[in-house]
C-alpha cells in the first residue's frame, strides 16, 4: 500500500487549515511549521486534532517528540504506517 492516498488527503486538510492552496502542490519535504506552510504551535495542535478525527491516529499521544510534524511527507508517512498496522 502506498502512502499517496493518505498524503493527498492530508494535503487537502492542510489547505483547509491554512486557507491556502500551497499545501496541495508544495514538495513533500516542505516543513509544516513556521516558514514552511506557516503553521504556528496552535495551528500545529489544531492540525493534530483534525488528523485524529479524520484518520483515527493520535499523533500527540504516540509521538512525544512530534518529529512527524517536520514536513508534509513525514506526517503523511506516520499516519499511513499507523493505518496499515491496524
Amino acid at each position: 500500500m502506498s502512502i499517496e492516498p493518505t498524503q493527498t488527503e492530508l494535503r487537502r486538510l492542510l489547505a483547509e487549515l491554512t486557507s491556502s492552496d500551497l499545501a496541495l502542490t508544495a514538495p513533500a519535504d516542505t516543513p509544516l511549521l513556521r516558514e514552511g506552510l506557516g503553521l504556528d504551535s496552535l495551528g500545529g495542535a489544531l492540525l493534530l486534532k483534525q488528523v485524529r478525527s479524520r484518520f483515527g491516529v493520535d499523533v500527540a499521544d504516540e509521538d512525544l517528540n512530534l518529529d512527524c510534524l517536520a514536513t508534509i511527507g513525514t506526517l503523511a508517512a506516520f499516519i499511513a504506517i499507523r493505518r496499515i498496522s491496524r
Partner: protein
Amino acid sequence: MIKCVIWDLDNTLFDGVYLETPGQRPPANTATIKVLRELAGRGILQSIASRNPPEAAGYATELTGHGFASVQCGWGAKSAAIKAVLTELGLTPAEVAFADDDAMERAEVSFHLPDVLVLDPHDLAEVPSWPQFSPPVITDEGRRRGELYLQRQARQEEAKAFGGSAKEFLRTAGTKVAIGPASQQDGPRLAELSVRTHQFNSAGIEVSPETFADLIRDPSQPGRRVITVRLSDKFGDDGIVGGCIIKIIETGPAYQVPLLMMSCRAIGRGVIDALLTWICLTAKGEGAESVIVPCVINDRNVPLRIALTGAGFRAGDRRAGQNQAKADYVRSLAHLLPELPDWVVTR
C-alpha cells in the same frame, strides 16, 4: 470557570428588536447590562452572536460602555457564530456561556455544543453568584482582559496588512518581553495563570497564591526561583503573560522546570521561544549541563510540546504521573544555543 459570555442582542442586551423600527433604535435592557458590567469587572470577556447587521454591535458598545472581544453578526446558526467566537479567542466550549431570550436558539446551541453553558435571561440576575462566574482571584490583568483583547484585534489587523515576516512585525510593533525574578506582588497573577493556562502549561496543576508567595519569599530555598514574563508593545501593555518555577539540581548539574506556563494571549508574539531560550542561556551561564522540563502528556498542551521540541528539547520515556502520563523534555546545553532577540530584556 467561564472565561467569556456570548450575548444575543435583540430582546437580550436590547429591550426590543434592532431592525424592527427603522430609524429608531431599541433602548438598553438595563438589568442584563448590569450583569454584563459586573462580569466584565471580574475579567470575564464579553462577545456577541446576533442575527443583525454589524452596526448593531457598535450600538451595543455604545449602550454598555464595553468593547466586545469577538463580534459575530450574521444570519447563520447561533452554534456556528459561537464556534467562530471560540476560534477567534482560542477558547473551548466549556469555557463560554451563551445568553439568548429565544428558547429555540438556546436549544440549537445546546444540541450542537453541549458543553456551552446556555443561559435563559430570566436566570441572569443570579449568575454573578454562581461559582463558575466567580474567579478565585481577580488580578489587574484579569480586570483589563476585555481591553487587552481589543488591543489584540488592532494588532492582528495591522499584522495582516504588514508585508514583512512575523519577526519583522514583532520588531515594528515595538514588542518588549521582560523576563526576571518574580516579586511578592506577582503571586496572585502567577496563581491565576496556573489555573487559566492549558495549552501552554507543563504541569497541569493549579498552584495557589500562598504557594507562590512562599516560593518567592522563602530564602531558605536558594535552589528555587520563580520567574515572570511581561509583554508589551505599541498596542498596549499585557502585563504578566507567563512564568516558570526553576529548581536547580546540583548533581548533573541541571536546571529543572517543574512549572512552565504562558497565556494564550502571548501566542504568535515570540514569547514562549524567548522564555525557553532565556532559561537555557541562564542555565548554561550558571554551569548547568541540561534543562529538564517534566511535562504532562495530554491533548490540550500540544502547543507547548511543539514549542519545546522546536526549541531543541527531546522527550524521554513516558511515565505514569499522578493523574496523567508525563515525560521529561530535556535540552542539552552542550551545543550552540540561539541568541535572545534584542527586544527581550532581563530584569
